[in-house]
């Protein structure tokens, strides 16, 4: 699910804090790479909403392959390399992060070269949670076989209606069961205060990031979805660290200034939209520019809120990690998803919802079981469905997307007149 560190190329105003963001992300990539090369710290790969706090507490340097997948999409390297994975038996219909990343490994290509890395840093262990999808496990197991490394993880519940204590208990037991393997590779015992600190930092980061996102409930919204996909970098790859918390304090202050000044992103905000589903990484700039040109701001998204973990509690680290992992939107059934979207539409005062139906990401495409139609009927908020993909741009038609978006904005303008008659030729 994750994010990209690159200069803001959207149509929107540049953030002052972006300079610090770039430094942080560069330090993250080079730090993990150095640890991998010099063996100065254990290195783990972790899924983007996986139990990273365990790794932080054990002194791991952590790399997030989904972040790499997003980088491959945004840099459009994905299209060059995915075919290598397809030829290996990984279908074009499965997660294009997976096929991009494995393809990039096989082709020895990576956007991380801009940070001086030759590619994704080689880990000592891979840790997944299937709370988001099964693909992450298959993805990590490829590398486990390739490098003969331990692959451990949580096989989570999916499509949960209510998150019940029995679910939380079961995941807590699995987290406990992971600890010996993580300790063995790290060469040290898990220290309870260190875990509590990591969970506390994750929670603080989550709260600050949520505050940043919620600033766009203001009119005009100071932070668009497109910029948020870049700004969320530290919430993904530095969750559980003090640096991430510091960064979001900085960003939050800047957003408060923007709200006070009435500065919106984009500058003109005739309409406010909500984005559900994955970003289309290779078209972020184009879409940002298009929406801005139509005076339309995409003010909130399910995606960027995926790194808000309200349940995290340092007083009960493992159990709260388990609950947080299960409460995520992506792990929930249609009922909670609809209630969440209705609440967000209301809180952010949106004029319409855009659903991205990502061809290779069924788990984060929420239009395939009638949700968009039910939501439209229940809330009377207009909805638009865009066909596309996170990384595989062959599944995306620029022209059709443009027409769909323009037509949706025309619809919001109430463009069609009520008058009939006259065309009698």
């Amino acid at each position, binding site marked *: 699910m994750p994010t990209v560190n690159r200069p803001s190329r959207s149509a929107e105003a540049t953030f002052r804090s972006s300079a610090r963001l770039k430094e942080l992300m560069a330090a993250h990539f080079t730090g993990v790479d150095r640890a991998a090369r010099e063996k100065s710290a254990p290195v783990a790969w972790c899924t983007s909403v996986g139990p990273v706090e365990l790794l932080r507490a054990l002194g791991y340097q952590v790399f997030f392959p989904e972040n790499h997948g997003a980088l491959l999409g945004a840099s459009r390297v994905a299209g060059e390399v995915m075919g290598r994975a397809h030829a290996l038996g990984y279908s074009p219909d499965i997660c294009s992060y997976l096929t991009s990343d494995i393809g990039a490994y096989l082709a020895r290509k990576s956007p991380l070269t801009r940070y001086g890395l030759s590619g994704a840093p080689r880990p000592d262990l891979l840790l997944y949670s299937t709370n988001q999808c099964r693909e992450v496990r298959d993805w990590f197991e490829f590398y486990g076989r390739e490098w003969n490394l331990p692959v451990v993880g949580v096989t989570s519940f999916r499509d949960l209606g209510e998150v019940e204590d029995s679910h939380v208990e079961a995941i807590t037991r699995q987290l406990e069961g992971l600890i010996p393997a993580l300790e063995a590779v790290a060469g040290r015992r898990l220290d309870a205060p260190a875990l509590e600190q990591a969970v506390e930092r994750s929670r603080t980061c989550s709260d600050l990031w949520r505050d940043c996102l919620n600033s766009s409930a203001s009119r005009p919204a100071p932070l668009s979805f497109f910029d948020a996909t870049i700004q969320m970098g530290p919430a993904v790859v530095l969750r559980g660290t003090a640096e991430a918390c510091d960064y979001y304090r900085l960003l939050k202050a800047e957003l408060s200034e923007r709200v006070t000044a009435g500065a919106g992103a984009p500058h003109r905000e005739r309409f406010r939209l909500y984005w559900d589903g994955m970003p289309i990484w290779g078209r972020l700039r184009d879409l940002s520019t298009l929406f801005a040109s139509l005076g339309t701001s995409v003010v909130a998204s399910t995606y960027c809120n995926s790194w808000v973990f309200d349940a995290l509690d340092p007083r009960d680290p493992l159990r709260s990690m388990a609950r947080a992992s299960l409460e995520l939107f992506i792990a929930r059934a249609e009922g909670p998803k609809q209630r969440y979207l209705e609440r967000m539409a209301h809180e952010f005062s949106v004029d319409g919802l855009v659903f991205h139906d990502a061809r290779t990401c069924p788990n984060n495409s929420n239009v395939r079981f009638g949700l968009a139609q039910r939501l*439209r009927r229940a809330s009377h908020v*207009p*909805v638009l*469905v865009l*066909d596309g993909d996170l990384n595989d741009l062959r*599944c*995306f*038609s620029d*022209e*059709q997307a443009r*027409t*769909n978006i*323009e*037509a*949706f904005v*025309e*619809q919001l303008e*109430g*463009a*069609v*007149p*009520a*008058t*009939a*008659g*006259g*065309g*009698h*030729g």
Partner: protein
Amino acid sequence: MSAAPCYAGVDSGSWNTKAALVDAAGRVVATAIVRTGADVRAAAEQVVRDLLERAGVDRSAVTALWTTGFGRHAILDATSSRTELDAHARGALQYVSGPLTVIDIGGQDAKIITVDAEGRRVSHKMNRKCAAGTGSFLEEMALRLDVPIGALPALAQASREEIELGSFCTVFTGTEVLGLIRQGKRPADLARAAYRSVVKRVLEMERVEGTVVATGGVVAHHHMVVELLEQAIGSRVIVPRYAQEIGAVGVAYAARAAAAA
């Protein structure tokens, strides 16, 4: 040549570029159609020349020229533009009051547009990135059946046996048709099966409610699509005059409405 003010609409489609001229009183004065070919701008210029000649109207009398269709942004001397979703809804509303559903089947895409009782567009759906359910699919089928596309309607009229084409995509359906030909199935039955396939794909896109209006080049030239649509939804389907040019008509009305505002 008349110099009374009028409003032109150009619909730059994937196969054809259509144009319509609406006068100040809201009458459609003339329409024209040319092949789009590889030069969208040249086609637009040609269709406007044809339109004005047909209408007997001087270019200087055109108060505004609005565009729609996939090439709408490429036409340089356009005053403004609207998407084809908007243009088709507007065009249909000149003939039928809402609530209505517009089913537009063109060369490269199919659309379902829902309009409420007040004439406001409330939703739209376009086909996915696939030719199934569009004119391109029928062209492919005509090729497989070795007849010109223009001969497909007459061929299908001679059908006696109902055949279901089960494949989802155009390429697979082409292969399926070749297999059926080898089995000895009649081209007439396969032609009708191709039309049924188009209708099925289109109706899978969105629920169809209220008065149904069908537009687009496929509807205008392949009446069997309308017949099969009516069978499938169990009610009458209205095909407006200028079914193929309805986008151009709609966007010309948009130009006129803007001038009046």
